[in-house]
């Protein structure tokens, strides 16, 4: 494998990107993950339009109906259609997961970039903070955040996002440390670019590949953590079709009506599994060429 392609003078590099995609396509597990994930995303987008049932409205005359029986996946303890709820939950879970990731990126990437690029005292301050945060389990950090912010889905998203911020801060710092030694960065500095410009325009693009890989891999963890907090009743409104909360309510009836817990549990399993398969494939495809990708895009 050519790890050191000859840089083109115009800076455009379509070739490695195509190779990246080509390798990803050869990864069977990864493509299966992508396919399942696409289905789930599609359901999340169009689902609420397709299912005629209201995921919120209790109907006490139709409680605990098994799958089939007029409701494809049955009804829950309040007679709500489980298909409608699990589809509405897909939208909530994916959006919450992405939103939490956005929070982590929004805080973690700048912190890591500052630490890695400027070094010195800033590096010490940021990294001490990151190390302290990393010494707590992520869920515990999220608990602490909820304790301060109060329950509710927005706060859960914020809490989970903040809890995985240190992961990104450390990752970006590591990459930035390597990238800032690259010749093109030094060239930019020599040409008189301001530190901020160098960091954002030259160092950051070089760190993108690992950020993408880790972000995709973290999405699964993030969804599970959010569901975990929902399971513990921190999502606030129990009527919201959130997978974790649905699982928690359903487990009480595991003997009487197992489908109430199995449906959201299965949906979560499928989603996280497909996200992780896809994430692994992306990591495999990107990793060997992180260096070359960085070289080409960074110029």
């Amino acid at each position, binding site marked *: 494998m050519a790890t050191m392609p000859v840089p083109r003078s115009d800076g455009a590099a379509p070739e490695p990107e195509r190779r990246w995609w080509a390798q990803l396509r050869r990864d069977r597990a990864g493509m299966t993950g992508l396919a399942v994930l696409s289905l789930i995303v599609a359901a999340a987008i169009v689902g609420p339009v397709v299912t005629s049932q209201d995921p*919120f*409205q*209790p109907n*006490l005359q139709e*409680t605990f109906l098994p799958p089939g029986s007029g409701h494809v996946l049955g009804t829950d*303890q*309040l*007679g709500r259609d489980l298909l409608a709820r699990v589809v509405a939950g897909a939208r909530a879970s994916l959006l919450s997961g992405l939103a939490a990731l956005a929070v982590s990126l929004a805080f973690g990437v700048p912190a890591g970039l500052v630490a890695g690029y400027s070094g010195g005292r800033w590096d010490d301050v940021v990294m001490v903070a990151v190390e302290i945060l990393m010494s707590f389990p992520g869920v515990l950090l999220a608990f602490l955040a909820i*304790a301060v912010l*109060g*329950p*509710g889905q927005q706060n859960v998203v914020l809490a989970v996002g903040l809890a995985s911020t240190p992961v990104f801060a450390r990752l970006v710092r590591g990459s930035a440390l390597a990238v800032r030694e690259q010749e093109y960065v030094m060239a930019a500095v020599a040409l008189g670019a301001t530190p901020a410009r160098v960091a954002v325009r030259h160092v950051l693009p070089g760190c993108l590949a690992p950020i993408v890989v880790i972000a995709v891999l973290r999405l699964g963890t993030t969804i599970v953590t959010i569901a975990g907090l929902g399971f*513990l*009743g*921190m*999502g*606030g*409104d*129990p*009527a919201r079709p959130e997978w974790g909360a649905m699982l928690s*309510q359903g487990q*009480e*009836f595991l*003997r*009487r009506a197992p489908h109430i817990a199995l449906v959201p549990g299965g949906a979560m399993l499928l989603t996280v599994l497909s996200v992780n398969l896809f994430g692994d494939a992306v990591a495999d495809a990107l990793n060997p060429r992180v260096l070359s990708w960085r070289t080409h895009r960074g110029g």
Partner: protein
Amino acid sequence: MIRPLVLCVVLALAVVQGGPAISAPAGRTFTWALHVAIDRLDPSASFALATGMAVGRNIFDRLVEHDERLNILPGLATQWSPSPDGRTWTFKLRQGVRFHDGTPFNADAVVFNVTRAIDPQLRLFAGTFAWGGVKAARKVDDFTVEISGDQPLPALLNNIADSGLGVIQSPAAIQRVREPRDFVPVGTGPFKFVSWVPDGDLVLEANREYWGSPPSVDRLVIRAMPTVTTRVNLLEAGEVDLITQVPIHEIARLKGLRGVEVDARAATSWTYIAMNTTRPQFSDVRVRRALNYLVDKQTIIAKVLFGVGRVADSPIGSAYRAHKSVKVYQYDPGIAKQLLEEAGWRPGPDGVRARDGQRLAATLWVPVGRFPGGAEMAQVVASAFRGVGVDVRVQELEFAAYLGELRRSQAESRIELVMAGWGTADPDSGMRPVLHSQSMPPRGNNLAFYRNAQVDDLLDRGAAAVDPTARVQIYGRVQEIVMDDAPWLFLTERREAVAWRSHVRGVRFIPSSAGLIDVRTVTTAR
């Protein structure tokens, strides 16, 4: 000092060699899987009502007891009478009773225990709970005691009998204790203490010299088992003889099993939703009544509570002797709409009713996992409210956060609608802390911030009335006024389900704040 040491060695051996089987001797053992942990062995110092139920009831006796209908029965006292002003009670004590350590029970023991419990420096929970209002205990002769307070004490008998915390312990045993961990419970009760592992087994053996009829089982093992599914599985497997707090949705299935009996009886506790009457949404009694007409209690009990519960026909539970069946707000959206219109709340452009720019909207708080079917009830109620343009959102709060919110004063309170429960054995402690205007948070639990001078006056009179008939009348009137004023959404009275193996007989239900079960009289064929 030697005894606990020996005990530790014995226990360690038992654990090493494979658990309880080795420590179980010949004879009939009765095992009860308790739904909560016992916090300590001294009921007078305990904050856990489970300790009253498990330790207080079995190792100890009280001066008086409750029966199934909350009538007062003799315990260590055989006779009692109040003074005309109600401030002093005279108890005649049972003679010839000995503590498990052989020391005699007499007036000195009672005075010692009461004085210890109400000692402000010791800050014992039993002092405010079982002996609330008591200021002094005085020995008249060896078997006569006077217990008195600054105010009348009409609730004293109920308070002593209720929780299992107002126990009489051996003064000699208490005086031997140098370190809290040396404490060994020594009472006069039907069972003697053998061993205890925190969060594990409390092992008791029958007291053959019991002054009443001695227990028919030889050993009583009380196993702390907070996980619901584990309790149910152990009962099904026959590894325990009885479990408390059977989840309501399991009752029907357990009833169908061979060899298992289930029963659910009325407790003194009830579940309600308090409406903050100081908020513009809920300051009008017509709105509060309208919302009560929107709660379909029959269907909720049938479908959400699996038939376990009773429609609220009074603010308090029917187990009370002072309970009065006042009325039921029968489900009727028509009346509800009409009342809302009369009160000036008209549907706005978004479908939510509004008045003078104020939307009829609120957040309903439910503590996670505290009330059987709590979150489900809240969702059903909120859904019915939304159906007539009242925008109620349910929010579950983790229990500590919930308690924190309930302790905020009126100026700082964020309560709009909140699900809560209450219940003790005496109507005074049952109603004053939740309805009197002097019981607003943070001091009390008047979560509706309900203020009615007539109710206050009646509650004050009830607290001073020693005559039982007068009390029933006074508290009956309170129930009528509160039902009409509707500071709460009246939901259901709670029932607690207990299940046991069919070979067990003689399980008694006593409605009390500590829980329902009295196992002193059980027999087992095994």
